[in-house]
């Protein structure tokens, strides 16, 4: 199967590969997997609690080129956005930008799920902190 130029570009030069401290209360971690193909993806966001803006995003994906490209692009897109804006990210936007074929659409779904679950994790942590301080 042929990958689009954009997928290859992200695959060869993935942006934001790495790890953030998952114990940090301003960091949300999303860990998702595609059981059908054995892929696993971890996506982390560092949010400024004052501004609600995502200041950093990192990912690590063990999977096919499309899964790596989807998570790479997703981290690029959410950086500088507010948590609410990032929540609006749809996998279809990734599909369009990366020109993913139908069999690889689930890779973009995975990236969307990862962003959402990272945000949920961040919100959980923040809520827990608020509960502690009050």
């Amino acid at each position, binding site marked *: 199967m042929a990958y689009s130029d954009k997928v290859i570009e992200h695959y060869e030069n993935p942006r934001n590969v790495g790890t953030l401290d998952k114990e940090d209360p301003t960091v949300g971690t999303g*860990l*998702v*997997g595609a*059981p*059908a*193909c054995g892929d*696993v993806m*971890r996506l982390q966001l560092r949010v400024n609690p004052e501004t609600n803006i995502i200041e950093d995003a990192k990912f*690590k994906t*063990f999977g096919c080129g499309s899964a790596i490209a989807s998570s790479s692009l997703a981290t690029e897109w959410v950086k500088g956005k507010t948590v609410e804006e990032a929540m609006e990210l749809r996998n279809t936007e990734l599909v369009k930008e990366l020109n993913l074929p139908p069999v690889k659409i689930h890779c973009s779904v995975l990236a969307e799920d990862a962003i959402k679950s990272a945000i949920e994790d961040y919100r959980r942590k923040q809520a827990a902190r608020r509960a502690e301080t009050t």
Partner: protein
Amino acid sequence: MSDPFSTLGLPASFDLRPDEIDRAYRDLQKVLHPDRFAGRSPQERRLGFGRAVEVNQAYRIVRNELARAEALLTLRGHAVSPDRKALPALLMEMMERREALSEARAAGDLETVRAVAEEVRSERAAACTQLSELFALEPEAGSSSVADAVIRLRYLERFLDELEAIEEDAASVP
């Protein structure tokens, strides 16, 4: 289409030994060898060829534990849903393993790569034993524990595919 077990004339069970699968396959191959169809009508030859293809496909499925488990669940009408999520603990474990492997690989630490391979291979064997027990416990049901065990085996197999590629890579370096 008939199921891969009946194509090979084997019982629909997870507990098939490699040697009995191989024997069933070889016996059928002999019967279906193109030489046997010399002098037969084109229609018979076509049928024989089609059957040989089917037998090859069935063999590939039944011979592999993961494909066999999936075929068995499909046969029972309990195929693992493509939407089924992996358990968080499994994802965490696989993520840690994969990170350890990629670090060892980047550092050229072949000893660690081999140790990880050894570990994952023995876990793969354990996962197969677990599947066999689950299938025996619930012969007709497609319980969620069977589906989770199948998903676990998928992740382990995928991991081993990559490990084998790394090992081959390392072996080809003079």
